[in-house]
């Protein structure tokens, strides 16, 4: 008769937000630090663009999602 009505909730359980934020941000910061160490210690021809770009892609992914979950955990529901 009438189509079924289902309640919608968030894609990730809300109780996980602070934990997710913490772990994603810490992993992101670790990868960021490895990126900057590589930048500081390598020199001249030794730098490989592929390694730099891949490290920065992984770091920005974790930092981006980590800061999203940080915003959600602190009550700014974006």
């Amino acid at each position: 008769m009438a189509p079924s009505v289902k309640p919608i909730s968030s894609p990730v359980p809300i109780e996980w937000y602070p934990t997710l934020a913490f772990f994603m941000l810490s992993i992101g910061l670790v990868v960021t630090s490895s990126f900057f160490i590589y930048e500081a210690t390598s020199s001249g021809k030794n730098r490989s663009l592929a390694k730099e770009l891949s490290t920065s892609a992984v770091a920005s992914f974790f930092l981006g999602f980590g800061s999203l979950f940080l915003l959600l955990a602190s009550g700014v529901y974006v």
Partner: protein
Amino acid sequence: MARMRFDLTLLLLFAFGSFLFFSAVSADLVISKLDRRIDLSSHIVRATTSLKVENNGAEAISEFLLPFPEHQAKNLALLTVIIVEGKGKSKVSSESLPVRIVNPKDSPPSLVWYSITLPKELGKGGSLNLEIKVALSNILRPFPEKITQADVQLIVFQDSAQVLSPYAVHMQSLTVKLPEPKVESYTKLENTKFSGSEIKYGPYENQPPFTYTPLAVHYVSNKPFVVARELVREIEISHWGNVQVTESYSLVHAGAVILGEFSRLEYQAQPHLRGASAFRHLIAKLPARAHSIYYRDDIGNISTSNVWGDSSMTLLQIEPRFPMFGGWKTTFTIGYGLPLKDFLFKSGGERFLNIPFGSPIDDLVIDNLTVKIVLPEGSKITSVSVPFSVKQSKQEKISHLDVVGRPVVVLEKTNVVPEHSQYFQVYYKFSNLSLLQEPLMLVFGYFLLFVACIAYVRADFTISKSSPSYLAKLQWDEVRSTIQQFEGVVNQCLIVHDKLQASLRDLSRTGDLQACKAARKTADSTLKELLKDLKPLISFLQSSPQAAQILPKVEELVAKEKELQEKIMQKHSIVVESYDKKSGIKDTENRVTALEQKIVLLRQEVDDLVDTIDEI
């Protein structure tokens, strides 16, 4: 007093006039029994009329007319009519019938006519039980209009003892319920009785249509007269798990205006004697599981509030910064968050929000209510369904992490009473992928930062490309990169040495001679290759002037490493030999010990040299 009389005589004139015009129309329907109950216990007048209408004419009737005097129709907030069947326990109520305003040609000017469409035609000789609920706001008048702090508030309520109807009524009665069991004065007509806190007028029999006997009740009411001149409710949905409701109120005490001074001392000493007409607390019934409730105004947070929660609702009690006396105003904002799964649903391909329309504050009359529903970015609004008439419009709002803006549905209504707190629905479409837009925007932002870093490190901003310091720096960079490569090669050699040592230990454990020999062979070939790699690096270092400091250390390292290599090879050959010859363990040990010590020493020196080169 004079004004009151003028109103009533005017109405009487019009009532008699309209009787002449409408006698033809209303000859068919007759109301056989009518019970009216007017509840004056709050500042919203609620009148419930249960009546039984019979069709004594020849034609079937499909509409029922209900007139209201103009001053009442202006303040009519709610009119619902339902059909009731059965009595007592087996009472069955139908849904609320459609009501619309009509303008009959011969109507006198100060009456407003409502026409109720019956679902089935009422045939000849048929009868129907109707229940009419009317809520009138802003119709009670404080009398006297200005009182001092010590006075009680007296209210006048004016109506008619007989219901204003175009049909003849065979029997009717009226009960007026007062908030307290005492009354200042009331119009004494025939069949009037006052007992407890109720005044009964009636029963009146066989009244012709449009009979109107004015009555007035003058009584004490100290219930809070809370009226919100303006309320803006903003409901913001976030699919990440929260429905945030923000309500901004601008309240006024719409009772008798306070005259003279307000003495805080007297008020605090005897609040019931000096301040009976004021109110301090407001109670709001929020939905269950409301969280992050705040109560603030322009100055800041207001801490005088309490929250009690259980599984069916959350009770919020707020106390404004000062007690509200007649004529005083206050503005504040209340906000709370609600879990998504109680209010957002998916049906078919659409999502919809199911949330109450009015304000959660008890017994509040709102003059102008604006409800704004803010949907997440990327949603398309399809329809809005509200159980009563509202004015709809659309807006855009830019909020956190927004690119284009969020669609907003704006619903406006005037003269809202708590009976309007019914659920309404907003239907919209939203795809789950659009939810990813926000984190991807953040990821992209961070990636741009990293790309900027990469570009900065690779960019060359020197102005003069041929200055000696610049050239020297270039050469030093080359030397550094060569040394790094050299270190890499040396580390690889050391790894090969370690492998050889490991193979010897494996030999002593497993006794597998063939594996040991194979390891030796691979080690030899690897070391040869590494040596070849080392040659161009060393020649470059020898040629460049910048490397003058490092060169001796590098050469020392190469020499030591060669020695180490030789010693390890020696040790390896000895051990393999002794295994081949199957000589005793003691014998092997003796030969190897001296070599072992030298190997350890050399290894130590090599490591130290690597460290010093690193530091440069």
